[in-house]
C-alpha cells in the first residue's frame, strides 16, 4: 500500500549514489526486505518501472533478498524465528516479543556501468 512512497525514496537514494559515481546506467538494485517490513515486492517493482522511466535507473533489475522475523522469549532468554501464524516460543510455548529483525527495507547495493 505504501510502496509508492517507499519506491520514491529508494529511487532517490539509488540515483544520488549512481550520479556520485558518474554512472551512466544502473543495472541492478539489491534490496533486503524483512518479513514484517510491510513491503510487497511486486508492488514495489511495479511502481519502480513507472517512476524510474527516463532516469538512468530505467530498466534496472530489482533483486529482493529476504529476512525472516525473529522474536525473543523472556522465559527461555533466547531468540527464535517466528512461525507462520503465531508468536509462540518453540521451546516453552510462551508468547515472545518482536525484535527489530524482520522489519528492514534496506537498499543494500547497486550495480552500475
Amino acid at each position, binding site marked *: *500500500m505504501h510502496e509508492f512512497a517507499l519506491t520514491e525514496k529508494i529511487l532517490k537514494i539509488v540515483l544520488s549514489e549512481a550520479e556520485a559515481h558518474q554512472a551512466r546506467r544502473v543495472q541492478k538494485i539489491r534490496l533486503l526486505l524483512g518479513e514484517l517490513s510491510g513491503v510487497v515486492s511486486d508492488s514495489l517493482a511495479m511502481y519502480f518501472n513507472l517512476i524510474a522511466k527516463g532516469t538512468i535507473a530505467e530498466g534496472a533489475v530489482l533483486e529482493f533478498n529476504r529476512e525472516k522475523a525473529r522474536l525473543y522469549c523472556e522465559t527461555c532468554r533466547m531468540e527464535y524465528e517466528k512461525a507462520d501464524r503465531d508468536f509462540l516460543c518453540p521451546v516453552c510455548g510462551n508468547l515472545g516479543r518482536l525484535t527489530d529483525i524482520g522489519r528492514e527495507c534496506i537498499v543494500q547495493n547497486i550495480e552500475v556501468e
Partner: protein
Amino acid sequence: MEISIEQDIFKNEAKLAEENRQLFSQKGLMVVNLLAAPGAGKTSLIKKTAHLLKVPTAVIEGDPASSIDTDTLNALGIPAYQINTEGGCHLEAAMISKALTEFQVEPNTLLFVENVGNLICTAFFPLGEELRVVMLSIAEGDDKPYKYPDIFREADAVVINKLDLKPHVDFRSDNFYKGLKAVNPKAHIFEVSCKNGAGIENWVNWLAVKAATFWAHQ
C-alpha cells in the same frame, strides 16, 4: 561496478522523526500520533478529549482527500490544519514539519496528529510523536493484534471505542487482550464510548498526566 549503499529506508524515516521531536520540543508541543482504521472514531475522540482536557489542543488532520474533519474541528473552536495526501496512505515526518511552517500553534499545546485511517502503513512512519495512540472500535473484531501486529507494537496506549455496541457485536475482550500482550505488553488500555462518554474520563486523566510530565521536563 558495484556500489555498496546499505541504507535502511525506515531508519532514514526514524532520523527525520527525531528531527521533528526536537522541533516539537522547541515549540513546546506535546504531539500525539493517533492511528486507527477509517471510522474507528478518531475525530470523535479528539472532540471529546479537547472538550474535557484543561490544556489547549490543536489538530493536524491527515486524509487522502477532503477537509471534512478539519472543518468540523475548526467550527468547534479547535484549531485544525488539513493535510491531503492525495491518495497516500499515511503521514510522514517531513509532512508534519512542513505543515508546522504554515500552521501556527501556541506553545504548551497538545497537538493531535490524526493520521490517515489505516492499520498498516501508518505503523511504519514515525512522526517524532511523544505518544502513539492506537484506536479501534469493537465492531472491527478482537483479532486485530494478530492480523496487524505492527500497528500495536509501539503504541503507548490503545483506546477501544464503541463500547455502546457491545450487545450487538461479538468482541471477545480476552482474545484481544491476549494478542495485544504478545505484541506490546506495555500499552495502556482504555475502553471507551465516544457516543455516551463511558470511560473517556480515565483516558483524559491519563493524557493530562502525560502532558503535565512532558511539559515539566521541557
